[in-house]
């Protein structure tokens, strides 16, 4: 994991954000976050301020609310949260503490990717230092009525546990399976209490926003996608690693920066993203154009697209929680179809059935995993029809 651009997060003054937040009242903090235009960095891009507002407003019989940091980072090709966790974990803890103050929660949990277990000791050490410094625990920064603490929960090693409701089930000690929504976690989350689940990067930007002001943040990016974004860029490029760009950067610019100009395709959004052809390289990374949680996978000219998508579908066949029919069986059928395509044994009628199935999975799966697992396959068939269809035997 090499850092390839200067990182704004590296220059954020420690705990300035928390101090600024505590100088406001809770609704004032929510308003500041809303003003910044920050949208969730975990992929779905839900406005963070609005999420907090809902969590703060939702009734809780005993007053309990939770702040959860989603540090499950399981999307293949994504490693930008790992950078934050290892380089600037205090920003993340600071952001969570601000969230606790804003929504009225006293408990924060970091759901840490199983493979990141090696970081626990260092993270615990930071938490202890924060407690000693009066930045966590009771009476934060000398304010008697502000209490918040954080503990770390090691994830179960399943990709689907990064989905926020599966994550919550897993925290409750159950099988990590996504829930039906509504109700959403902001209303009924961990143990049925109002809960905000946010990505690692989201919390880190929170600390920066409160410290430097909403205006600073919203001046960066595009009309509907504010601020800088960390991107994990991998695949057939000369310089893979973590990059920071303002939202609005084009794919061509990314390829130039990484030395991947020869790409024949780029998958934006990781295994659950979209496979774009060169004609789309002028498009921008932004929620209103090509959205991503941060993973960009570049595909060089000599690679077989079917190999790539086969790999991806194998991942989903294993990582589906197995709960709902479209995803559990649908992924298997698409994978079978890809294998048949590779052997030249998938007729164009079958391919049509499979793309129809992919559409069904997108609209009828229970959670984001099944809703997005056919994305790469579908976008490949639609954007690279010739390359795929050449492999299908002419129908009888």
């Amino acid at each position, binding site marked *: 994991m090499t850092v390839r651009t200067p990182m704004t997060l590296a220059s954020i003054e420690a705990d300035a954000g928390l101090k600024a937040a505590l100088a406001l009242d809770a609704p004032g903090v929510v308003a500041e976050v809303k003003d910044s235009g920050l949208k969730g960095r975990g992929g779905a891009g839900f406005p963070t301020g609005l999420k907090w507002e809902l969590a703060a407003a939702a009734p809780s019989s005993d007053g309990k609310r939770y702040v959860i940091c989603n540090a499950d980072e399981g999307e293949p090709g994504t490693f930008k949260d790992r950078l934050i966790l290892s380089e600037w974990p205090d920003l993340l803890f600071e952001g969570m503490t601000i969230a606790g103050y804003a929504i009225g929660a006293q408990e924060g949990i970091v759901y840490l990717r199983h493979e990141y277990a090696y970081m626990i000791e260092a993270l615990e050490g930071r938490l202890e230092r924060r407690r000693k410094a009066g930045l966590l625990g009771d009476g934060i920064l000398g304010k008697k009525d502000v209490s918040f603490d954080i503990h770390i929960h090691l994830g179960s090693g399943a990709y689907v546990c990064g989905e926020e409701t599966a994550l919550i089930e897993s925290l409750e000690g159950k099988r990590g399976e996504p829930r039906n929504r509504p109700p959403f976690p902001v209303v009924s989350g961990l143990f049925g209490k109002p809960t905000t689940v946010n990505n690692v990067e989201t919390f880190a930007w929170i600390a920066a926003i409160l410290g430097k002001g909403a205006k600073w943040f919203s001046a960066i990016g595009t009309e509907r996608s504010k601020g800088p974004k960390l991107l994990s860029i991998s695949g057939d490029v000369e310089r893979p690693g973590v990059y920071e760009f303002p939202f609005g950067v084009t794919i061509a610019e990314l390829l130039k920066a990484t030395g991947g100009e020869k790409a024949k395709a780029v998958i934006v959004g990781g295994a659950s993203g979209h496979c774009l052809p060169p004609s789309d390289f002028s498009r921008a990374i932004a929620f209103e154009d090509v959205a991503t949680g941060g993973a960009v996978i570049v595909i060089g000219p000599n690679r077989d697209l079917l190999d790539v998508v086969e790999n991806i579908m194998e991942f989903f066949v294993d990582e589906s929680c*197995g709960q709902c029919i479209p995803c559990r069986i649908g992924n298997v059928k698409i994978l079978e179809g890809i294998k048949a395509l590779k052997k030249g044994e998938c007729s164009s009628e079958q391919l049509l059935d499979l793309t129809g199935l992919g559409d069904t999975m997108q609209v009828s799966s229970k959670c984001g995993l099944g809703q997005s697992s056919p994305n790469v396959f579908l976008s490949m068939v639609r954007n690279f029809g010739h390359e795929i269809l050449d492999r299908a035997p002419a129908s009888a």
Partner: protein
Amino acid sequence: MTTEVSTETVTVTVDDIEVTVPKGTSILEAARKAGIDIPTLCHHPDLPDAGVCRMCVVEVDGQRNLQASCAFPLTDKVEITTHSPRIHQARRDVLDLMLSEHYGSCRTCVRNGNCELQDLAAQYGCDYVRFGHKTKATSCIDNLGPSIVRDMDKCIQCLRCVRTCAELQGIGALGVLGRGSTTEVGTYLDIALSEVNCINCGQCINRCPTGALSAVDNTDLVWAAIKDPTKHVVIQTAPAPRAGIGEEFGLKPGTPMTWQMNTALRRVGFDKVFDTNFSADLTIIEEGTELLLRLYKNLVLGDTSQPVPQFTSCSPGWIKYIEHQYPEYLPNLSTCKSPQQMFGALIKTFYAKKNNIDPKDIVSVSLMPCTAKKFETTRPEMTDSGFADVDFALTSREIAKMIKEYGLDLPDMPKSDFDDPFGTASGSGVIFGATGGVMEAALRTVVELVLGIKVEDLFEHADIVPVRGFEGVRYVEIQIPDKVGPVPAILADLVPDWNWLKGATLKVAVAHGTANAEKVMEDIKAGGKFSECHFIEFMACPGGCLGGGGQPIPTSEAIRQARANAIYGEDAAYGEEGRARKSHENPPVMKLYEEFLTDGPCGHISHHLLHTEYTNRGTFIATKTKKES
């Protein structure tokens, strides 16, 4: 089953039809209220929704994706559409995907003609298997136990069984194993169901939409016995099947078939048709006596070796449940065998002798609403007659199958009565089939034996209404007046008088479905109000035996209510026809004590034949009973 429905309402439109429902109602329920049917597979009215099959998806205005209507609670005014091109495609795809994983032949399937997957495949025009189909079995059929068969090649993973076992029954014998494409429904450690804490209640079978779960089928063995001229094949029939079996012949739930069934069973080839209610009455005499004795020993003599509250013991699912989950309370169980087993023991002793038949030539069959009864017949404790007390317990579904196989249409059969020497039982025996029935029957008898007055003086028509109904747990107090009666002759050797009961408050409770049993047991453990009860009726199945795991499929609260109405109706009719309604007024039962059980209720003979003891089993994995190992 909707969990949080408020008193506020919301008006929505479903396919342009306006409908007003309480907030929190699911789209599915709202649509059904509007008269629009939405196909479902994982939804079941008795269970919390899982939203996993995705058959019930609909368009909700403002939502990008389709939504599972069963799991979408309505809180705001929205427009819902139940038919659109992508809904049509999604439902068809989901069905095709399920069919692609399905291995089994409808022609030989126990659910042929009553299978929700088969019905939907037909309804949604699945005319070929677009995504291929399985050409060989990939899992091994689990038929190692006496009650339940699992064929996971027919499982569509709707998780109804998992939810039934965990939520309705509070057991959790079935769960989800594995992940991704290898996910399957199975048991703890993936071992046979009979090796874990499953109580054989069969509630999962009744809610399985396909043939993946079924009951062990003993009909071929019974046909073989019927065809064997050296065998005397008798059948006893429990009260609950009569209220349900008509459903197998297209009748409305709650159409009683008692007398028609007697004729059909004789035509099919049974030599005698007996009424299990006879032994239900006998159970009441024995269990009621045991209760009074226990109370006398505990409250007067200070002998706590047989503790109070006394628990009923006629539901074999409940028995296995307590053996697994609360073995420390086994001494609270009544030592009475269930009516099925009491009858079995009498047939191969009393009946055999009276009719000069060698008991080894008797094949004793029972018609039960229950799959756990199959297990019960195999318990090593149930051989006190010197033989298996009961050879085969058949479910309502199996008997319906035999009657159909014989070419008979049950509703067309002429009516006929039960065979002697056991005759027709009392109305108290009949109500054993409903939750609260054993309690009501016992109270009718105990009250009369103790007070020397008619129950009718306390409860109109002798209907002890407070113990009736479908409330999961019911608690009732009955005030005993200051005036008690003399000890009746039949109990004279056991207690000197009833003075110690004067003015006492008799506290009783009823629980049905083992999740409700768990609530009561936990309360008892915590020293709550149920620990102060004197007598508690427990039935493993929701609704009692009428909702048993061997009853016709489907089931729902409305169906169980209709069956209950049939059962209470029959009890009331007994009164109108001048038949006995109380167990101790059943003439053949009282005659049995004169002729055979000559040392009276809970005497030595009855103890040997009609009473038993139970075993501590492991919490998760079934350990063998003392006699088995």
